[in-house]
């Protein structure tokens, strides 16, 4: 039997209204027909995805296909020319306010570019707390560093003194420190070695469960995506070419040719001849 998750809508409102309310209310994040244009280049050509509260949704696809642009558009950092973005059913305007960033945090793809090299880890973690006027900084910083597996010995290092993986852990700690409900994760572990990747993935799953977080996560590693996400969208050349459940991907039940090529390439390098 199918169960409707929400109480019935008020009298006098037709099914259409009810249906769209359910759709809008159930989605933590809904992106509809989104267009992003840089100069004259269309980076996103009518992209739609919908993510349930507490869901972990993956984005995979071609390099340059617009995955980061989609995340950046949600974060208010890309030139949207058409389409809508809604959080918890409420459509977002052009500007993102402070409250938005307490709710939505992003971990950027590039752990070098996103952390100021001349700041200590401590400063980098203090900053968001100061911006949002949060008091119990000391405790939050210690907990955040602990959560990402960086001992207190790292706290007063400058970010340029850290290895690639150590920087990415600082970036994740910084995103978590505001206790957001939605995390936009752009290749959060592609700079990490396998052992730290496993730790960070476990950490992300654990905080997602503990805090009921919603993830929108980009990764080019299909094993990581199928491990972390329930559903995913495959992107190519500014478009979503297929949306499917992770178990279907794992079982090679895919419809699109490009998705099939990705799966094949995931098997590793094969020397010709």
């Amino acid at each position, binding site marked *: 039997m199918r169960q409707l998750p929400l109480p019935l809508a008020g009298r006098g409102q037709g099914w259409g209204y009810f249906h769209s309310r359910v759709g809008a209310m159930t989605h933590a994040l809904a992106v509809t027909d989104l267009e992003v244009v840089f100069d004259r280049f269309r980076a996103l050509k009518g992209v739609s995805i919908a993510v349930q509260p507490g869901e972990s949704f993956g984005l995979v696809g071609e390099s340059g296909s617009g995955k980061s642009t989609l995340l950046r558009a949600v974060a208010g950092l890309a030139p949207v020319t058409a389409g809508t973005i809604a959080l918890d059913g409420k459509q977002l305007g052009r500007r993102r306010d402070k409250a938005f960033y307490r709710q939505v945090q992003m971990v950027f*793809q590039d752990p070098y570019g996103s952390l100021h090299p001349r700041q200590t880890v401590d400063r980098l973690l203090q900053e968001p707390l100061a911006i949002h006027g949060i008091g119990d900084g000391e405790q939050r910083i210690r907990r955040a560093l602990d959560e990402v597996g960086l001992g207190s010995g790292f706290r007063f290092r400058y970010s340029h003194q850290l290895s690639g993986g150590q920087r990415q852990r600082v970036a994740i700690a910084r995103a978590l420190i505001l206790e957001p409900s939605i995390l936009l994760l752009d290749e959060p572990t*592609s700079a990490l070695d396998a*052992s730290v*990747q*496993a730790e960070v993935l476990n950490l992300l799953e*654990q905080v997602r469960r503990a805090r009921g977080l919603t993830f929108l996560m980009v990764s080019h590693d299909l094993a990581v995506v*199928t491990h972390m996400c329930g559903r995913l969208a495959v992107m190519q050349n500014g478009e979503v070419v297929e949306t499917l459940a992770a178990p279907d991907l794992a079982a090679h039940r895919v419809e699109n040719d490009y998705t099939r090529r990705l799966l094949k390439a995931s098997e590793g*390098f094969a020397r010709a001849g």
Partner: protein
Amino acid sequence: MNKAAMSGNLLDIEDLRVTFPTRTGRIEAVRGVSFALGRERLGIVGESGSGKSQTGRAIMGLTPPQAEVLAKTLAFDGLDLLALPPRERRALRGKRIAMILQDPKYSLDPVMTIGRQIIETLRTHERVTKAEARERALDMLAAVQIRDPKRVFDLHPHEVSGGMGQRAMIAMMLIAGPELMIADEPTSALDVTVQLDVLAILDRLVAERGMGLIFISHDLRLVSSFCDRVVVMYAGKVVEQLKASELSRAEHPYTRGLLDCMPKIGADRHPLPVLQRQAEWAQ
């Protein structure tokens, strides 16, 4: 004649050490690394912070100035790199030894277009006309599977995607035709199909031109299918060296742990197993 020249290796490293003095004490990033490289594909794997990049940078001569580099042997094609005058060392860099840095966007000049950066690299090492340089830069961008080379040629680094920046960096490093290539996580930002295309380019350079390749990566599945040999690093040291095809039969518990903690398509392991690090691995 010195030992390296006699060995016939492209690269000989014995007891390499890289140490950073900091306010809170000395950080020993590399602690006595030794290996040799022929005209082959050598993988370096190891956990974050284990000294992979600093090993590559020391070979390349790109160690930060405040750090101290020591080695019993650090020889490229019989040349003692640590004794070489700075001018000659610089001349090697980019021309005979190239390194694809782990942090492409950080290493590209933010105020110069991608195309100009590739052209400038080419023209510091070869005398070519402007038109020819442009032609070759565009060809190189196409070779690394950039969809629209002409558009990307005129973009600045902040205007390209992560994987496009990484490929621009690869194009820049390949264009001078180096004999030794150190590729530090060269494909970590690429989707898997493009990743294989880039590996095929590197593979051809090794097979056809006899280039030596050091391939630093945390992707063990990729390393085992692509490289000839693998060096496993832990806490600044080499803990194991083995044939890439035998990686799955590695003996060191660290290497075994690394293999085990990778997620696999279709496997349902929550949480993933993690490494239980042992103090004695670092000794």
